[in-house]
């Protein structure tokens, strides 16, 4: 490994080191605040390393990993999301009993997996990254031992995740059997040299799609989502919804772009069907929820469906517009989802998660700042202007219209209409007068660190919604 490779790979090494340091710190002294600080510091160092490597061109680090500008950008996004999640965890767990320090280690390990995933260019790192991420998530989901819901969610996630990994491996095996290649560019070369359409490769791709579809909770692989979102502690839910899904989506995009998956029209048809089903099922079922976390879970299914539209458009339009659209949408989605679950996590108390609508009754008048933040997040999810979510939706429209995917765009419009109903319903509940829903028993403490993070997220959300030029120019040159 030469020096430029080392510099390129340094951020990943930093995360791994931070994970070890956190583990050692816990061995020396069990102190939750200290552990959080160490973990946060580790992520900051890693971000710094990323910034140092920022000027480099694409670097191939071993045959397994390829660090390019795009990978660095997404990694920075994942790490920043990790920082926010750590802040939420701090406020969420600081007053709870039990040994919560290992949580930080698990988060770092999951981030390590995600970082490997987004820089992967080989089936081996694809699988290793995904499993590192998933195994950490099993434990994170079930971390709060006292609650049966949490345990149930963890077991459910474990079993289904195992099945999906099996699908994934099978897909890889099929492709390998045909191509004799495990790295993405090798597969592309093989496919380009073949003129005929290959059934084995297609089957392999479809198997991989099934495995990935599970991680992205696309219909029909979505069944775990509401239960896991509901059962996991709120900051962990934020982590699953952002880091896990984002990293997998980026990997999927990279795989399709660099291995020529877009040549396979039927695979895109499969994706189209999944996108339509996700948008419809996600939105319709979200309408029926009275539990805020379950509602957000179904809405995230729908959002992955929207994102798929830009992805599918990649079969017909220039790859840089696809990458740009997907990345902008993901950035907006990250900020919004972190914000929304951050509010849920701030409002939660050790006795109960803030999932019932009654928690939000009259929030506008009890805690106007928090309610305003939540409103912005919900409006961004609904894609209303002044928020980054709108620009993200605009990108989807641009990519979809450029690829002439009229049917899918129509679904997007219908889905948005349905989505408005449940987002607005929550806003209505928050704006109801306090007298009707006062329930002073479960007023949560004031989480200072989380509040700062939420305020920053909101400012960024509005900033990128009104003046997205900076972020756009940043993303535009990535691919």
């Amino acid at each position, binding site marked *: 490994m030469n020096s430029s490779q080392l510099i390129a790979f340094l951020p990943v090494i930093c995360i791994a080191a931070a994970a070890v340091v956190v583990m050692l710190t816990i061995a020396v002294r069990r102190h939750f605040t200290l552990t959080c600080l160490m973990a946060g510091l580790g992520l900051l160092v890693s971000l710094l390393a990323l910034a140092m490597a920022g000027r480099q061109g694409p670097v191939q680090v071993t045959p397994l990993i390829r660090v390019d500008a795009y990978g660095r950008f997404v990694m920075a996004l994942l790490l920043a999301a990790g920082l926010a999640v750590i802040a939420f965890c701090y406020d969420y767990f600081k007053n709870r009993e039990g040994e919560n320090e290992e949580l930080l280690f698990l988060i770092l390990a999951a981030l390590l997996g995600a970082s490997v995933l987004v820089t992967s260019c080989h089936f081996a790192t694809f699988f290793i990254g995904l499993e590192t991420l998933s195994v950490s998530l099993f434990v994170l989901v079930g971390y709060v031992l006292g609650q049966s819901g949490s345990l149930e969610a963890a077991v459910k996630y474990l079993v289904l995740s195992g099945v999906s990994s099996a699908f994934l491996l099978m897909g890889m095996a099929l492709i390998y059997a045909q191509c004799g290649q495990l790295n993405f560019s090798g597969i592309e070369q093989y496919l380009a040299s073949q003129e005929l359409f290959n059934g084995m490769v297609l089957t392999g791709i479809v198997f991989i799609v099934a495995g990935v579809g599970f991680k992205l909770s696309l219909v029909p692989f979505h069944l775990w989502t509401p239960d896991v979102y509901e059962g996991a502690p709120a900051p962990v839910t934020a982590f699953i919804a952002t880091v896990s899904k984002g990293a997998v989506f980026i990997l999927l995009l990279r795989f399709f772009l660099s291995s020529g998956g877009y040549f396979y029209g039927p695979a895109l048809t499969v994706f189209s069907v999944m996108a339509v089903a996700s948008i419809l099922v996600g939105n319709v079922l979200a309408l029926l929820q009275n539990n805020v976390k379950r509602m957000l879970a179904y809405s995230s299914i729908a959002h992955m469906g929207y994102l798929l539209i830009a992805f599918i458009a990649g079969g017909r339009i220039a790859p840089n517009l696809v990458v740009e659209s997907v990345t902008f949408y993901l950035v907006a989605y990250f900020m919004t989802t972190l914000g929304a679950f951050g509010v849920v996590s701030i409002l939660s108390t050790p006795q109960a998660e803030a999932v019932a609508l009654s928690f939000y009754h009259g929030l506008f*008048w009890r805690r106007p700042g928090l309610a305003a933040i939540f409103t912005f997040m919900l*409006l961004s999810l*609904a894609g*209303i*202007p*002044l928020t980054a979510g*709108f620009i993200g939706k*605009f990108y989807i*429209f*641009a990519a979809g*219209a*450029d690829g002439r995917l009229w049917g899918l*765009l129509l679904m*997007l*419009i*219908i889905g*948005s*209409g349905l989505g*408005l*109903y449940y987002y*607005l*319903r929550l*806003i*209505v509940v928050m*704006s109801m*007068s306090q007298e009707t829903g006062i329930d002073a028993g479960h007023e949560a403490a004031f989480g200072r660190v989380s509040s700062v993070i939420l305020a920053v997220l909101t400012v960024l959300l509005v900033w990128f919604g009104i*003046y*997205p*030029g900076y972020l*756009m*120019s940043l993303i*535009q040159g990535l691919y």
Partner: protein
Amino acid sequence: MMLLALVAVLFLGGLAALISERWSPATPRWIALAALALEFVLVLLQYLLTTDQSSAWIADLKRPWIARFGIGFHLAMDGLSLALVMLTVVLGFMAVSCSWTEIKQRPGFFYFNLLMCLAGTVGVFLALDLFLFFFSWEVMIIPMYFLISIWGHEDRTAAAIKFVIFTQVSGLLMLLAIVMLALIYHGDTGVYSFDYFDLLGTRLDADTAFWLMLGFFVAFTVKLPSVPFHTWLPDAHTQAPTGGSVILAGVMLKTGAYGLLRFVIPLFPEAAHQFAPVAMALGAVSVLYAAMMAFAQSDLKRLIAYTSVSHMGFVLLGVFAWNLLALQGAVMTMLAHGISAAALFMIAGALQERLHTREMGNMGGFWTAMPRLSAVALFFAIASLGLPGLGNFLGEFLVLLGAFKVSMALTALAALVMILSPIYALFIIQKAFHGPLRQPYPIADFGYRDMAAMGLLVIASVWLGLHPHLVLSETEPSLQTLQSSAAMESTDEQ
């Protein structure tokens, strides 16, 4: 810069109102009043300072915004937008005036939303970049949603959500059409642009043009509204607080008409021409159907809401007739209806504040109890039925005159409303103001503040009717520019 100030004053005024609630519950309304007064002065200054009469455009401001897609922050004002911005400011005053005592809960947030809504509307009337236009279009919806869902009446939640879903979904269709138009322009020229003037000459094949036109048309006719997209309106108007109803009926409906005038026909002249018979038929049907529905209502605000649909049908008819007379009539109807509908909603709101009901069955005999209020109500009921000498008559007359050249049958059909509108207008007067008084307790009549506001509207209505020259001549150049950019009627007029 003046144009930017027009939007900024309302925006900052809204923020100031929100913050000022801390000092006293009364400050927000004064701040709202001050912001509107400043806005009024600015609009007037803009008008008076314009010396260049050669161009239809009074003012123009263009700054780069999102360079990636060639999106600019492009505001411009011509006679048409000037008239509509003026209407917005005047009705803004009315909305503040009628909320003066009605809004007791969280006045800061109320006036914040009111001013944001107005800022979005002014943005819609001024924006000449399609992206910015859509942006403002959406920005005005959410504050209105809050106005209805927080300060509205008993069924407010459902009405507010219905309002947002209708406007939002149709808005997304428009966004799709806008994006598509920009992409086609990009395909032709190699650069992205959302600028109105750039896109104006885009060459489209007939099929594409038709679908894109339809995207815009649906968004605007939902807002206008026209049958069959009108069902959100009676609910939203009825449930909104008085100030909200005034803004909704007076100003927001006009954004739909403005969009048809400014965007649909100039951008897609051929497609619009082909579609004109359908659109005009929809207009004529709206006129008649809504007038009949109005007569069937027992809820006063609902009745007035349906009359709005009926009047807006004339606008649709006039816009798609697309000759100067009909266009001037449409603009006149927009202004005159803005004033008369706002006044009627204020009267309905005043009655509700005093009686806590909107049911006309519970009303009666107010003529003796509240002579001032009743006189004003009579005036505006008659204005709304189209008495010659008032603005509404002029607008409808010009529309019918212009539309007659294009389609005799539809014009004759729409003219039947001249029979129906007196029925519903006089029905209000008879039910609510004549007959025996039902309330045993004394009811307060209009005070000085109400009378000042109403007096202003009465004067404006009479002025529009008797001296329409100023408005007509001020909007004529811009209407002519619009027409020349899309001379779709040139063959029909010969």
